[in-house]
């Protein structure tokens, strides 16, 4: 068995999701290589070289590959695979991996297994279905296993090695006509919802968009991302991209603070992997308390200023 990891990076640095994927791979085999596709990606390579568990890093450095266009990455990975045999191909289950990995699987005519959260053996894995409301144990019958790995379920690998790097030249591999117009990076000073250590979310109980300001001070003090329930989004309090839940963002922070959120099934589905959930709601019957580690029955308009002051 031999594993290939497709590295997620932005040419300057390696995304932490890659290090978690390496850890997942190390649970299958100790023969692990990494493939980094990009342009002017030396500083990212220097970072990746330190990763434990890797035998070799293959580097494709080519103009036109500076942005992660799935078609380009897929073409180069497929050509690389013509001369290199792997039993497993792992990519982080980030938007990068979700966009790219099914293309690799399809070209190889195998059925990808998405978003694995644990490894039973070399062909059997667990993955969440129904937004984590059930866990499926699945076995791949394909010769090559193409997997995406949920990064929050595997600790990042250690960085105490010095891995050999081999340059691969694929000058003739096609570069797509898709044009990359740019990336508008989230300007918020707050962390991203999907990678935040702490999240504070408001629900319908916030009553209006202005009242979300009550959460801001607390979020500042905790270094937290801000989210909302679908009810709050549907009521127009906050934008859609704040939505946490089954049809929104699935999150897994160390601490999730739910304020004025009743705890609809579809919201719970998005937060249940949080390490700790604390909730504040004035209705002591609110279902959210059944899923919370700490519950406080109180009027949020009295409690939030006090909480901000005391933190």
């Amino acid at each position: 068995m031999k594993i290939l990891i497709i590295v997620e990076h932005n040419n300057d640095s390696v995304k932490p999701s890659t290090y978690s994927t390496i850890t997942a791979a190390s649970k299958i085999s100790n023969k692990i290589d990494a493939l980094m596709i990009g342009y002017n990606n030396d500083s990212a390579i220097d970072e990746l070289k330190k990763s434990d568990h890797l035998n070799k890093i293959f580097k494709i450095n080519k103009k036109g590959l500076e942005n992660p266009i799935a078609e380009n990455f897929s073409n180069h990975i497929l050509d690389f695979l013509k001369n290199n045999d792997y039993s497993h191909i792992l990519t982080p289950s980030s938007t990068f991996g979700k966009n790219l990995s099914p293309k690799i699987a399809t070209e190889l005519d195998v059925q990808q297994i998405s978003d694995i959260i644990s490894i039973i053996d070399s062909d059997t894995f667990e993955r969440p279905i129904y937004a984590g409301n059930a866990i499926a144990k699945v076995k791949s019958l394909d010769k090559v296993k193409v997997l995406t790995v949920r990064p929050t379920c595997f600790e990042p690998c250690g960085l105490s090695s010095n891995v050999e790097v081999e340059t691969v030249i694929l000058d003739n591999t096609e570069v797509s006509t898709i044009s990359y117009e740019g990336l508008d990076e989230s300007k918020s000073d707050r962390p991203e919802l999907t990678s935040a250590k702490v999240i504070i979310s408001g629900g319908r109980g916030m009553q209006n968009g202005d009242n979300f300001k009550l959460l801001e001070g607390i979020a500042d003090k905790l270094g937290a991302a801000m989210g909302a329930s679908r009810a709050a989004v549907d009521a127009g309090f906050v934008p859609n991209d704040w939505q946490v839940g089954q049809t929104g963002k699935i999150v897994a922070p160390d601490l999730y603070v739910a304020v004025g959120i009743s705890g609809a099934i579809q919201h719970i589905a998005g937060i249940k992997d949080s390490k700790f959930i604390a909730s504040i709601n004035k209705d002591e019957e609110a279902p959210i308390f059944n899923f919370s580690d700490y519950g406080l029955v109180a009027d949020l308009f009295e409690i939030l200023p006090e909480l901000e002051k005391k933190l």
Partner: protein
Amino acid sequence: MKALVCVKRVIDYNVKIRVKMDKSGVETDNVKMSMNPFDEIAVEEAVKMKESGIINEIIILSIGADTSQETIRTGLAMGGDRGILIKTDGQDLDPLNIGKIIKVVSEKENPDLIILGKQAIDDDCNQTGQILATLLNCHQATFASKVEVNSDKSISVTREVDGGLETIKVSLPCVITTDLRLNEPRYASLPNIMKAKQKKIETLDVNDLSIKLDKRVQTIEVNDPPSRKPGVMVNDVDSLIEKLKNEAKVI
């Protein structure tokens, strides 16, 4: 321009799912079913493009048992023109098989745009659009939060990626998968629901498509997720902060 919109019938997002006693899957008998919410967004986007004169025909495609007709009707009531049902005996088909089926339909219909949800909320695979674009060898624009058709018929798609919004320009034909922020799907009005009943749904048996449908992934068992241990109620802000600091050690 012609659009093919693919919709999946799934357990309604508001239903609390139950794992079957024999662990073979999730209970779907006597459970409310609806169109996958991401596919609703796909239908809405196509209907909006038709309203603005960019698209002149919308085909709603679903793959499943006879009951998937209802899901197609929902799409027709929202503004689809006609439907296609690829009839199966209701078995779970892997996304690769679904991609192969849609490819056959697409080669017959030759749509300029194929729009579908980025993932279905049952198996959460997030693969079908990417598989289809690969099989059709056309451009893909996944996780779309904004779609604009340019005067040269190229399409600028803003994609929701981790850490921001990425914009790419693709050419036709292409596959677009929809994310939450793209639009807010309309509710079908009663007159439109009535009108949809007159619209045509063509039914084809999946076995007549000459595709080899083989199962590559075997579900060994389905379990409830590990349950959360019961929590405690605290009386005031001070005890909440104390617990978070000293017991959970998360702040």
